């Protein structure tokens, strides 16, 4: 019998450098990108945007003065649901599954996780926004070709509109994410996001016009309802997706695309700060 003498392997405790922010961002990206649902949500969003834009451009191509690029943002009407839902699912996801326990054990200071998730969701939202903007352009091309109208992406405010669409999608993803991180449950966060972005504009429209028909274009006064309406995150953010030459929405003060974007950004920031305060000062269970 040969006695095997094994020299014990020294247990080296590497002086790990702790969770740096870059590593937290990398892990959050892995969490987002390794799930199937964000990619499915993104794919459905792009397809729905493409379809709605195509139908809208076909419908308005019968107009004698047909500007194909005026329809480029119509896909966002329904497509805006995608980034919103995506953000909520990411924000509330770890609290739903219980994975947050591991996460906050690894990153005990907690706030880097929220910051990293914000970066990751914002980045994913920007990518999705680019895809939606491309889908918008592709959606108007068939109608433009059928009418022999050139699609000039450099003309009057179109670059601004396309950039606004990208930023709007990213902003909605961040809004949903902030709500999810604040409320920590999918259903309440989803409900709040829907009410703020989708339902309250309809309620305000009903206050103006009982049966949801055409609005009176002659009314150019700034009304209280219009002011409340444009200060909502969805309506404000949508100003980014319209050319500045459109002027204000009926009854609302003229914020312009930048002002509208700032409205959405303010909502996102307020919910993110509230989520950070809750994360720092309250228990996670």
């Amino acid at each position, binding site marked *: 019998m040969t006695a095997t003498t094994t020299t014990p392997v020294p247990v080296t405790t590497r002086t790990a450098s702790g969770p740096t922010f870059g590593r937290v961002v990398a892990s959050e990206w892995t969490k987002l990108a390794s799930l199937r649902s964000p990619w499915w949500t993104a794919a459905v969003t792009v397809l729905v945007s493409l379809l709605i834009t195509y139908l809208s451009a076909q419908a308005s191509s019968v107009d004698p003065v047909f500007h194909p690029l005026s329809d480029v943002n119509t896909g966002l009407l*329904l497509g805006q649901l995608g980034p919103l839902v995506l953000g909520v699912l990411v924000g509330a996801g770890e609290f739903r599954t219980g994975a947050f326990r591991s996460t906050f054990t690894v990153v005990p200071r907690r706030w880097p996780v929220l910051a990293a998730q914000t970066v990751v969701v914002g980045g994913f939202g920007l990518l999705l926004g680019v895809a939606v903007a491309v889908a918008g352009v592709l959606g108007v091309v068939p109608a433009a070709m059928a009418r022999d109208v050139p699609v000039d992406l450099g003309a009057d405010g179109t670059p601004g509109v396309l950039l606004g669409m990208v930023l709007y999608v990213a902003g909605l993803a961040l809004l949903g994410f902030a709500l999810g991180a604040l409320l920590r449950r999918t259903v309440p966060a*989803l409900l709040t996001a*829907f009410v703020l972005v989708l*339902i309250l504009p309809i309620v305000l429209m009903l206050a103006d016009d009982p049966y949801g028909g055409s609005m009176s274009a002659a009314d150019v006064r700034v009304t209280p309802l219009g002011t409340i309406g444009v200060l909502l995150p969805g309506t404000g953010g949508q100003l980014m997706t319209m050319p500045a030459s459109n002027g204000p929405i009926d009854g609302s003060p003229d914020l312009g695309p930048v002002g509208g974007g700032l409205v959405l950004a303010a909502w996102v920031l307020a919910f993110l700060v509230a989520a950070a305060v809750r994360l720092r000062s309250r228990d996670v269970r």
Partner: protein
Amino acid sequence: MTPVATGASVAARVARGAPARPGVTFARALAAEWTKLTSVAAHAWLALGTVVAAAGTAFGLGMFVRPDDGRSGSWVVVSGFVLAQLGFLVLGSLVATSEYTTGTARTTFVAVPRRLPVLGAQVLVTAGAALLTALVALGASYLATTSARAGDAPALDLSVPGTARALLGFVVVSAAVALLGLGLGALLRRPADALVVGVVLVVFGDYVLTMFPGPVADTVRALLPSSGARLLQDDAALAGLDAVTRGPQLGAWGGGAVLAAWVLVLLGAAAYRLRRHDVR
């Protein structure tokens, strides 16, 4: 060595166990679902929130009614439905999906192995809770709009054609929306999925389609479950809606029939999935 048990001793051993009970009856499944619904605090908060949303929205919209804009007294009272229907949708989808998210579904379907009685009991329980909530919401909306109706808004006058249908419609359509949420939830088994699909079907799809008025969009709008909300309009408003549409004209009851068909189809699909597919 103990002798092999004879028939008599087997019978004696069985008799020593728990007293023989009748199998699962529908009434007991119903009682169980009612307990599940009423013992979760979130459901009570949801019902309260729905009532507040209905009354608050009706109050707010009542402030903007002018005497000459063609709105009736019933419109003012039931106008909170646009926001309150979300509460009913959430109620239905929560009843259907919460057992799948928590895993209680396994216990439930071990207790009721035929499965369909559970869905039937959930339908009854949800409809009952929604009807009750809607009645309270209607009463609260009536009280909240008292000052508006005393001011510029028209009074609630039952002799205006269609007013009774509008008030009753608020209650019935609320329950139907809850059942639609239940059907979606039982079919999709995830609250987020059910909620997204439900909101698009019940509120938002209609709103998007108003942006593209035309025969196709108007036909699709008429066939969406959101046309059930036509039951909340009085006769003059319905005539106005039918005059401008380029799709099918649904008349007084057509919208309700569309909504009922959606509820039945979705619940049928959910029952099929429950019977034929695995529960995990």
